[in-house]
């Protein structure tokens, strides 16, 4: 199977997908054919080189059937199904939302994802329902040379409250492959959602993902990204605050080593007033790793009394790592509070000296400093289970 129209039809047939989804896939495929490969003349891709990515090489699907979630016992009314199944059982819920936030026309990779996505999950938590246990979605890749394109769709009803974890896992080191892991999150009035995505694909993977949340009145999102895997990883993290009182917390940690390249583009889109967003992306770089962070706070005309914060902190641990940080503001209303900051710097020699003077070997001291650097943001991981998972993972990688 290649990335062809036939493949689109085949995927659709395999799942007996309804006509509207077939159509959506076909139109995304048109966009995929139409849109050029992003190049360095596009502002968003100036520092992000995809010239070495030939997607056609990876047109073998690993999960043409879709990967299904494990089903915990859930309260009545909660829907938690593989997306491929859910589109048939609950078209009325999914049709208006699927790809309404993560648009297929955005670029060639978004189009590819929308045309060929397989697997992924649909979670619907009805009004007023609170899930105590976090829901864990795992997406595996078992071999190289393939495409793994899961899509997560999360819908929180009024006052619903729950946690969700997307974990992207490679089993062992494998050859290059194409991975996406996009998520659309809809937060109904007064709902509270904690979403964590942990990306630990193999070190040869290409990973391109779009996460976008839409926050209604008084809803609260705590979104946390952990990026550790892939050779090339580009993640867009975007939140639209469309209802008064909406509150988005967007946090991330990343640890780039070897020849890894990580790119993050973030958007805090305050469409209405009395909204709040708080972003903190913290990363450590070592060896010849490179990272790009570019984020925008946009306060639209009527969005008075918005409060937005954005910070990107980079700890550079080696001589040859490179970090780019571009925190941007577009403010169209005066009654706001907007602050942002960016730093790029090495381990503070005084910190290192302090630890060394207490007999701690340099390597251990450095590790402690990195752990301390991530420490304050790790506390913001919305739920215990994910926090432990991330800590273990970091421990192993810093070791």
């Amino acid at each position, binding site marked *: 199977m290649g990335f062809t129209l036939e493949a689109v039809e085949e995927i659709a047939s395999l799942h007996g997908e309804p006509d509207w989804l077939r159509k959506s896939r076909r139109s995304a495929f048109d966009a995929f054919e139409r849109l050029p490969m992003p190049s360095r003349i596009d*502002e968003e891709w100036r*520092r992000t080189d995809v010239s070495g990515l030939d997607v056609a090489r990876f047109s073998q699907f690993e999960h043409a059937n879709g990967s299904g979630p494990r089903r915990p016992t859930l309260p009545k009314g909660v829907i938690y199904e593989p997306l491929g199944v859910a589109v048939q059982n609950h078209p009325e819920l999914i049709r208006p939302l699927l790809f309404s936030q993560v648009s297929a026309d955005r670029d060639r990779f978004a189009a590819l994802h929308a045309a060929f996505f397989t697997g992924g999950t649909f979670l619907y938590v009805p009004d007023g329902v609170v899930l105590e246990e976090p829901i864990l979605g795992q997406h595996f890749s078992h071999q190289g040379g393939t495409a793994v394109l899961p899509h997560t769709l999360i819908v929180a009803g009024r006052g619903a409250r729950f946690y969700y974890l997307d974990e992207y896992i490679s089993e062992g080191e494998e050859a290059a492959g194409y991975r996406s892991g996009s998520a659309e999150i809809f937060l109904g009035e007064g709902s509270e959602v904690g979403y964590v995505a942990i990306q630990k694909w193999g070190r040869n993977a290409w990973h391109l993902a779009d996460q976008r949340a839409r926050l209604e009145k008084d809803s609260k999102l705590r979104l946390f990204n952990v990026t550790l895997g892939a050779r090339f990883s580009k993640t867009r993290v975007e939140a639209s605050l469309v209802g008064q009182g909406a509150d988005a917390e967007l946090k991330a940690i990343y640890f780039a080593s070897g020849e890894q390249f990580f790119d993050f583009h973030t958007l805090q889109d305050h469409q209405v007033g009395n909204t709040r967003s708080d972003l903190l992306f913290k990363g450590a770089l070592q060896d010849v790793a490179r990272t790009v962070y570019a984020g925008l706070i946009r306060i639209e*005309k009527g969005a*008075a009394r918005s409060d937005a914060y954005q910070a990107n902190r*980079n700890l*550079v641990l*080696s*001589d*040859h790592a*490179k*970090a*780019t*940080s*571009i*925190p*941007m*503001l*577009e*403010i*169209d*209303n*005066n*009654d*706001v*509070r*907007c*602050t*942002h*900051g*960016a*730093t*790029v*710097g*090495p381990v503070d020699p005084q910190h290192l000296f302090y630890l060394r003077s207490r007999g701690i070997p340099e390597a251990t001291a450095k590790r402690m400093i990195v752990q301390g650097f991530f420490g304050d943001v790790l506390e913001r991981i919305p739920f215990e289970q994910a926090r432990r998972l991330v800590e273990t993972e970091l421990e192993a990688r810093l070791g």
Partner: protein
Amino acid sequence: MATVPKVDVGTDYKEKYGFFVPEDFVFKAKRGLNPEIVKEISWMKKEPEWMLKFRLRSLEIFRKKPMPNWGADLSVIDFENIFYYLKASDKQSKSWEDLPPDIKATYDRLGVPEAERKFLAGVSAQYESEVVYHSLQEELTKKGVIFTDTDSALRDHPELFKEYFGTVIPPADNKFSALNSAVWSGGSFIYVPKGVRVDIPLQAYFRINAENMGQFERTLIICDEGSFVHYIEGCTAPIYTTDSLHSAVVEIIVKKNARCRYTTIQNWSTNVFNLVTKRAMAYADATMEWVDGNLGSQITMKYPSVYLMEPGAKGDVLSVAFAGKGQHQDAGGKMIHVAPNTTSTITSKSISKGGGRTSYRGHIKMYPDAKNSKSFVKCDALLLDDESRSDTYPYNDVDAENVTLGHEATVSKVSDEQLFYLMSRGITRSEAETMIVNGFIEPFTKELPLEYAVELNRLIQLEMEGSVG
């Protein structure tokens, strides 16, 4: 200072400066841009062959380069509807008395003679496209300082000129530097010899005074080892009905241990497109400071930059932008760290009101060799009403080891607490807001010579009076 009636800056140039001096040109080129016009300019100026070739090559580059696809909207500029060269009088005046009366009248309104009496070393005033008035204190000449207009420098100091001209900003740098390179005229040329300190600021007034007239001045400053100079560029312009283009190129070379400060107060009328390339090369332990104030123009795109070429070089940009109705100030700064142990700071203060838009756009680049370098950027924006807009676009690229880079920005309105405090002491709302705005830009004002600081405070006051009910 001359007493000037209080009027709303930006709209009432006629009353404020009484600027409509009848056009009386010795030579007036045709509108439009083609190799013939460029040849004519070069011929009029009796330039050497290499300069003509440089101009023609630049014109070709200009033709090939696309318009920038970022920043402000420049699509309304009609390059074919601009005069690329005008010359107001045939020869340079040696003293104030020799100036043609109408030009003198204009400067009188601007207070130039008073300024000169007070502390000016020399006045190199650009009227239309060529420097017509130029006076140099004997003392400067004795010290070996050259302060002249750029055209004369090409004629009188050909070796020095050729060695540095176009080396900091080559024509191919961007579309507008190519345009300037093709049709440049006027500007200042300064050479400060080794170890010489010029204690009094050198300054020039630039003016645009003909409808649809382009102004393409070209400034070149060379600070030899261990020297110091402060150059002040102030712009005012009368208002016209059609759009004007101002596209200058300023090149500065600051050699070992030297220090250069370049102060600009840009107050073009609000129909001018101000698209300027300013760049300095700072060598070992040298210091370059840009103090850049943008108040006027319809659109300004200007990012003074410092290339820190050798260890110990230091760069500073202090930038203030004020955007009123219909204005877009797209300003900022660039620091390019090429060598180890270099430091830079950028401080930007911007104020938007009445639907104006200010954008900070900056770039910090640390090349792999720039070990142990430091850079800090701070941007503050003040929005005075809910129609106005402020943007921040800082690009930070770190490719070097052991460097520290920080960026901070805030956007806010005039704080209610501050207003309340002042108003509770019997100060009116409008006065209180003016005080807050003046306080906000104080770090900039205090770097200006007294006379400019006073003028700036007054301008802010006038702007504020126009806006606050």
